[in-house]
């Protein structure tokens, strides 16, 4: 092993099991489990007058049916508000099973446990609920009007109003030579992982212990929530996150009602119990994102330099606020992207509606912020008749200005201070990738063929690797194999591969000898979770530090055994040797020496007998030491690290049908040092596809009564291969982060952030009409054309 693994396109170790069909997702475990189904509200807003479950008890194969009245203690309290904030003065969360009132179609009302899902669903059909219907509040406009209230005790439907500023934006705009105002809108979409939510629980009466398997982005979060709600000690609850079929944000929400009801049922019934969400349930009872309405006032000079920017926006957070204000706070701060306006003021209202809750979806508020900022940049360029790239360039933070303090507070309560980046270099790269300077001749050539094309550009900055911490434990076994555990979870990011690359490099062991476990509270009880593009930064750094500790111990023991100086030692392929000599000792043997036992039981133990370590006059385990060849460490950064990128897209808009076709898609991406470029590019591909979905296809079609009309894959248009770019031109810039030992930044969400912004710009450029709302369908574009014709 002389090649460095970090930075290599290493094939994934996960794939071996996943392509054979031997992966383990939640629904694959406990095939003997009882199944569950949930009665969900058919109404967006109603009072529950009565619930009659008597008829269910006659259904053969039903083991339990619960409503709110069956819940006790903490289970009868509202679900936790996970992230409180001082401005969230009217936070509300739902109950595990609805108490007296329902506030969205899909809210859980009753829970049935049966032999199988078929019988459980039969049982649901026999539950009779009498509702008193209330008027539904749907969409930002209705929420703002507040003619009706979602929660009787929340005036104006406003959960929070938050304001931040840097400088006096109003004064700067008033004094600016040019001003513009824009009204912009983005609709709802959702994560839509291919695997929905799912939870399995087993109660072990012999050990008084609960084991929960759940499809989550935070094992430790679920563990704490289950323990608190079921009145168990943390030590009685193990949570295991097996293979997860995609997350994209929705699975960071916890505990879902089912994540509590399933463990409770397992405990009460003494049987393994399982909940596997179906697709319609995922649409109406998990979470959505994106919907916001913005009003922008901007003042700028003759070069297009933004002197003052004032943004007022309204965020639709659905019926409850379990995840606090994270999404709108991110929008309000990350909107600034790579730019440095002279002064900035932002204010948002987070509003209740009778719809599914809104919590982070890949990008988490950034796609909206990026859309607003980039629309503003394009509007400034149009107003001044300047090149759109040039207007951006004059607003960039310059490479010598880092660390750059935007003067705001970020989602983690820390300063919005960018650590590093090089935006001018990135702009040069994206312009080259998309042949920006020659686009006009391309446009003319296409026009000669009767075709209409447009070019769009969008830039973003993404705070990644948010704290508070992650940890890692590295254990070198006597076989020489290295077992590593970190607490955050995996949903397809290839952590078992990328983290093993880090360990192989740091320890000097073969990549194949490293085995990574994620998301198992039995192996690592202290962890936060996988969100905010933080896994590589947080756990990657923690693993690096833990491996370093194990290595230090290995070298110390090896130096003693080989009677050599530590500085003369090296580790290659799991063997420590004195550089330039034959004197060596395998790590497995060092592992034996690190654990002074009375008993020899394997070859490694026998091999160890030839070495003498330790001072015979002192205790075999020194006071400041412990047995075993292990390393444990935690990484906790002062603040987020800021990745960045730019996307450019060329579209053709059909002159007749207004269909929108992607001719070229280019990405320049800076996530600091790359661990595995193959995986990073895969993340970009997937993000871009979701960006295409959000820009051109996906929306949640609620009617005025709060019914979601497109709650299926038939009607909610997720991109197939036929909708995505055939290829994506990718170039990387590697500006290392000074905040972590590996110089890395997050990459998970990046690909999706500038999607709507870039497409809006490209379509606007092709059509010469103003795009203010996304997503945009061919019929909407057609209507815009007609409206423009009429106004002329």
């Amino acid at each position, binding site marked *: 092993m002389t090649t460095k693994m970090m930075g290599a396109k290493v094939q994934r170790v996960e794939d071996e099991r996943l*392509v*054979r069909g031997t992966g383990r997702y939640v*629904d694959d475990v406990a095939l003997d489990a009882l199944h569950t189904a949930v009665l969900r509200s058919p109404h967006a807003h109603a009072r529950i007058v009565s619930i009659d479950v008597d008829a269910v008890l006659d259904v053969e194969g039903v083991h339990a049916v619960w409503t709110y009245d069956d819940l006790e203690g903490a289970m009868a309290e509202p679900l936790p508000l996970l992230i409180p904030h001082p401005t969230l003065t009217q936070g509300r969360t739902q109950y595990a099973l609805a108490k007296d009132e329902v506030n969205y179609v899909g809210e859980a009302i009753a829970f049935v446990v049966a032999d199988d899902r*078929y019988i459980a669903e039969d049982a649901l059909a026999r539950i009779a609920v009498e509702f008193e219907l209330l008027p539904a509040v749907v969409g930002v406009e209705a929420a703002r009007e507040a003619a009706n209230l979602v929660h009787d005790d929340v005036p104006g439907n406003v959960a929070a109003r938050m304001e931040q500023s840097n400088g006096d934006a109003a004064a700067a705009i008033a004094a600016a030579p040019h001003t513009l105002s824009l009204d912009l809108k983005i609709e709802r979409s959702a994560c839509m992982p291919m695997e929905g939510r799912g939870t399995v629980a087993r109660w072990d009466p012999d050990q008084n212990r609960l084991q929960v398997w759940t499809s989550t982005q935070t094992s430790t979060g679920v563990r704490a929530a289950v323990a608190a709600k079921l009145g168990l000690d943390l030590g009685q609850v193990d949570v295991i996150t097996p*293979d997860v079929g995609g997350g994209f944000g929705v699975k960071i929400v916890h505990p879902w009602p089912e994540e509590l009801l399933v463990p409770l049922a397992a405990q009460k019934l003494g049987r393994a119990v399982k909940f596997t969400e179906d697709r319609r349930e995922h649409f109406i009872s998990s979470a959505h994102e994106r919907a916001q309405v913005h009003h922008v006032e901007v003042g700028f000079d003759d070069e297009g330099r933004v002197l003052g920017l004032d943004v007022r926006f309204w965020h639709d957070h659905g019926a409850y606020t379990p995840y606090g204000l994270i999404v709108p706070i991110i929008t309000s701060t990350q909107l600034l992207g790579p730019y440095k306006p002279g002064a900035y003021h932002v204010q948002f209202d987070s509003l209740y509606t009778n719809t599914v809750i809104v919590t982070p979806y890949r990008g988490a508020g950034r796609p909206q912020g990026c859309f607003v900022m980039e629309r503003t940049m394009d509007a400034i360029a149009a107003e001044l008749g300047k090149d759109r790239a040039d207007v951006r360039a004059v607003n960039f933070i310059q490479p010598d200005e880092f660390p750059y303090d935007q003067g705001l507070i970020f989602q983690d309560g820390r300063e919005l201070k960018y650590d590093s980046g090089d935006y001018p270099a990135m702009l040069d790269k994206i312009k080259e990738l998309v042949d920006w300077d020659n686009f006009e001749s391309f446009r003319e050539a296409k026009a000669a063929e009767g075709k209409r094309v447009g070019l769009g550009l969008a830039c973003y900055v993404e705070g990644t690797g948010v704290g508070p911490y992650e940890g890692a434990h590295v254990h070198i076994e006597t076989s020489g194999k290295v077992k590593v555990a970190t607490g955050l979870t995996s*949903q397809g990011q290839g952590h078992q591969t990328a983290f093993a690359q880090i360990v192989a490099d740091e320890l000097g062991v073969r990549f194949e000898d490293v085995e990574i476990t994620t998301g198992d509270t039995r192996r690592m009880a202290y962890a936060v979770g996988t969100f905010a593009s933080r896994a590589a930064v947080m756990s990657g750094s923690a693993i690096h530090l833990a491996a370093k500790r194990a290595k230090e111990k290995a070298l110390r023991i090896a130096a003693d055994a080989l009677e050599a100086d530590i500085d003369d030692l090296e580790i290659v392929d799991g063997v420590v040797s004195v550089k330039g000599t034959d004197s060596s000792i395998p790590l497995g043997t060092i592992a034996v020496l690190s654990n002074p036992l009375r008993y020899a039981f394997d070859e490694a133990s026998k091999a160890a007998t030839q070495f003498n370590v330790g001072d015979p006059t002192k205790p075999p385990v020194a006071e400041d030491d412990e047995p075993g060849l292990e390393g444990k460490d935690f990484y906790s950064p002062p603040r987020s690290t800021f990745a960045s990128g730019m996307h450019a897209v060329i579209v053709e808009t059909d002159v007749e049908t207004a269909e929108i076709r992607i001719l070229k898609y280019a990405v320049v991406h800076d996530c600091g040092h790359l661990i595995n470029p193959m995986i990073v*590019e895969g993340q970009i*591909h997937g993000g871009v596809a979701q960006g295409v979905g959000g820009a051109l296809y996906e929306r949640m079609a609620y009617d005025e009564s709060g019914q979601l009309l497109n709650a299926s894959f038939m009607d909610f248009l997720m991109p197939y291969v036929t909708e995505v770019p055939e290829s994506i031109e990718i170039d990387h810039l590697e500006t290392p982060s000074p905040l972590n030992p590996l110089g890395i930044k997050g990459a998970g969400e990046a690909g999706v952030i500038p999607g709507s912004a870039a497409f809006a710009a490209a379509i606007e450029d092709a059509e010469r009409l103003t795009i203010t709302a996304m997503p945009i369908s061919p019929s909407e574009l057609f209507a815009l054309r007609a409206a423009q014709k009429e106004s002329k």
Partner: protein
Amino acid sequence: MTEQIHEIRLTVNGVEHETAVPARRLLSDALRHDLGLTGTHVGCEHGVCGACTVLVDGQPMRSCLMFAVSAAGHEVTTVEGLENPDGTLGPVQQAFRECHGLQCGFCTPGFLTTITAGIAENPEPTEDEARDMIAGNLCRCTGYQNIVKAVCRAAELARESEDVQ
């Protein structure tokens, strides 16, 4: 009310299984829950996403749209049956790994079965034909570019192994 139970024989990956199911039991559920072949995944339960695709007499079928009783007497192939006889990865499996054609892996079994049937019918697909081949399967992770590459690579690997034999 007691459901009528049907004793059926299902041939899956060349192995005959006897099982007893109600008439309404979906093939996907029978494979997963009754036979323990959990490699077949269910993504939408209404035949749109393609994750549950299995081969029935060599033809791709959505196992969430088919009753287990209807599969009796037919040869069913699931993702667990796609490896080579010697236990190494089959060409489509190998190609997905080489081309990074999967991330979370949940939709993957449906792609693997679909492509297995696709390259049997068209052993030398162009990139456009590769896209057509997978145009009925949803993936939320990869953006599909690497899956298209994997189709072409799988066809290449399959041809190579044909040549060897």
